[in-house]
């Protein structure tokens, strides 16, 4: 096992460009991506060495020297990516340029059942790869918990009932592929650096607010892992005065218990049961319903959403005070639903920090983690085929293993 699957985002950008403009030339790549000709030549050379592109064809340009044509090798292989969430397991098969070719969605379950679901998702994608006659070269899995880099166990993942689950050991005994396992929000951050809202941004935070709450902190293009691979556990910050002078005994972080989907729903339910009038009294109270009711000026829902925005602002202020990010990307089911309330959130953060970050809603929908897993798997595949080329504009903190 080892840490830090490295990959160079610029390589993916070039590969994406070649795939989308197939065939193309080094000059076109350099001009359109704003990279230096020397960088493009170096990257293309590595991609050729790795069997991902061909650079053999030549065509005479308008009167000048013949240009070498760069073309994409679609038959070179594929990777499998998985996002094991609290409610669903999302699997994807992608080619070596990161184009998603097939997907599989199924209910996740908890405990051993969650792992069984994971294997079923993997098998569905392997089957699809066989049908397409694509060799699968690597796999990456995002899990909603902390990966212990020494033991390969997943901790603090209550949404799938894992606390000490030996996910790496179980994958080693089930797979014959190189793989990497990482925290789901870390992978979402990787996706944002690659194809999302933090492209070309060195310092940013991905704050995920959904079934649970977590953050990934990226500094100068590298993920902050911390000593125990546990950096970014924003769900545990202190936000309420009820915590003053009292022990924490329930194991659930205070921030996460308020600033999350279940926290929002529970708060609304409590107020409804206290007899406060609300349109939510006639509905199934879900986080989505609360946010919708708040936008319709329902007083109870508005109160719950105001509390949520206060708590989120607290968390963002803490992140900004400590790490000074340029951008904060809101992820997760609740985070992504905050678009209409974004100005209110920004207004709460700005007065309390010296340099307000740009706060944006994720543009990747529900796919950020699985897309980040594609990138991590591609990085792992590249690292194995060309270790000397791994110069890393981004590192993934995951725990990797290989059987076979």
């Amino acid at each position, binding site marked *: 096992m080892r840490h830090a699957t490295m990959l160079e985002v610029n390589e993916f950008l070039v590969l994406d460009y070649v795939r989308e403009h197939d065939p193309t030339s080094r000059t076109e790549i350099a001009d359109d991506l704003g990279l230096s000709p020397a960088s493009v030549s170096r990257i293309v050379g590595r991609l050729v060495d790795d069997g991902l592109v061909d650079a053999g064809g030549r065509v005479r340009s308008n009167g000048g020297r013949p240009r070498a044509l760069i073309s994409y090798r679609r038959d070179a292989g594929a990777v499998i990516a998985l996002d094991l969430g609290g409610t669903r397991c999302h699997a994807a098969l992608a080619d070596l340029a990161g184009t998603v070719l097939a997907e599989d969605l199924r209910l996740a379950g908890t405990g051993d059942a969650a792992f069984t679901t994971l294997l079923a998702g993997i098998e569905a994608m392997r089957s699809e790869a066989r049908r397409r006659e694509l060799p699968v070269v690597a796999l990456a899995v995002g899990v909603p918990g902390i990966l212990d880099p020494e033991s390969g166990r997943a901790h603090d993942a209550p949404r799938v009932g894992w606390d000490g689950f030996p996910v790496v050991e179980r994958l080693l005994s089930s797979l014959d592929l190189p793989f990497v396992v990482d925290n789901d929000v870390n992978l979402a951050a990787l996706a944002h650096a690659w194809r999302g809202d933090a492209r070309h941004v*060195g*310092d940013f935070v991905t704050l995920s607010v959904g079934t649970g709450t977590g*953050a990934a*902190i990226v*500094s*100068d293009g*590298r993920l*902050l*892992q*911390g*000593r*125990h*691979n*546990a*950096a*970014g*556990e*924003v*769900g*545990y*910050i*202190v*936000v*309420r*005065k009820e*915590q*003053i*002078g009292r*022990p*924490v005994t329930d*194991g659930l*972080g205070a921030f996460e218990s308020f600033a999350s989907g279940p926290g929002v729903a529970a708060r609304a339910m409590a107020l409804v049961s206290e007899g406060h009038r609300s349109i939510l009294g006639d509905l199934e109270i879900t986080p989505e319903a609360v946010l919708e009711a708040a936008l319709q000026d329902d007083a109870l829902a508005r109160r719950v959403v105001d509390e949520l925005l*206060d708590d989120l*602002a*607290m968390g963002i*202020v*803490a*992140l900004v*005070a*400590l*790490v*000074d*990010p*340029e951008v904060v990307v809101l992820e997760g089911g609740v985070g992504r639903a905050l678009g209409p309330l974004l100005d209110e959130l920004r207004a*709460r953060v700005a*007065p*309390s*920090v*010296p*340099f307000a*970050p740009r706060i944006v809603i994720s543009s990747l929908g529900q796919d950020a983690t699985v897309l980040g897993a594609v990138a991590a798997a591609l990085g792992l595949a590249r690292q194995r085929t060309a270790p000397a080329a791994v110069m890393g504009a981004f590192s993934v903190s995951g725990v990797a293993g290989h059987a076979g």
Partner: protein
Amino acid sequence: MRADGMTLAIDIGASRSRMALLHRGAIGERVDRATADLVGSDGTITAGLVAAAVSLHQDAGSPRLEAVAVAIAAAVSGDGIVLQARDFGIPAGPAIRDGLAAAFDVAVLVDNDANLAALAEHTLGAARGEEHAAVITLGTNIGLGLILGGTVYRGARGAAGEIGLLLVPVADSAEHGGEGRLVDAGSFGPAISRAPAGYAWIEELVGGGALATAAGGTHPRVFAPDALAEPSIRRLSEHAIEGWSMAIADLAVLLDPGVVVLTGGVATDAAPLLNVLQRRVAELAGFQVEIRLGSLGPDAELLGADLLARSSLEGAADGDAGAGLSAQIAGGWR
């Protein structure tokens, strides 16, 4: 090639400013002044600081200087520009850097004081050998220098580590024996307004200056054994431990530094309560966080400034300084 001349290191704090001449890391002649005494008619310390530095240098026989390095209790950009004025006389902008450069005609390096304390504790002191460490300076103000991955972490604009700006919930006055909020905010300058209702910045709540004010000025050292004998001061110290615990717990869960080093005069006074602090942080964070006292004492910032100067001089001498000293530091510390 190693730099072999002297450096002039300056540490500007909210209440005291220290400056010293160092040779190969050893502190020689030095002077310690109240920061308030350096403030001139323009409301800033710039002219007074330069004059005091020149005076120290002349009193020492005007030895050849290689560089001047300044530790400053403010956020500082990678090229030594103060990002935000502080209300004890630190002006925003390049005035301090440029004033010293004009007076001494050598490279002047400016960085946040907590960053430099962290550099010193990591290189020479209690955080030596640690890949990740958080060094908290507990003085009149509260600062934080972060060592992440073996290097000082600065953030996108040089403003990382502003732990004094962490918001913590504030109990109602009645819940804290009538003390309520301890002091008014405002030391962060005009870019910051006020903490939201129900919350306080940790520094305005339990920074050393706030604690001394809350103690009525009679006990500036609220953790001194004789002060703790008074019930009201003891309550204040418990209040401080709770506030610090919240800040350290937030830091621990967000950055997972592994080791937290406490430096500064207030930390030294509070040393007997370290176990209490560690227990409470573990309760709030949900895991044990190792908390150590710094080993370099009040000179950590001066030693860090000297390390900064010498490392940049060595970089320049080796010909890899790129566009200049400032750029070298900005690039090398990320």
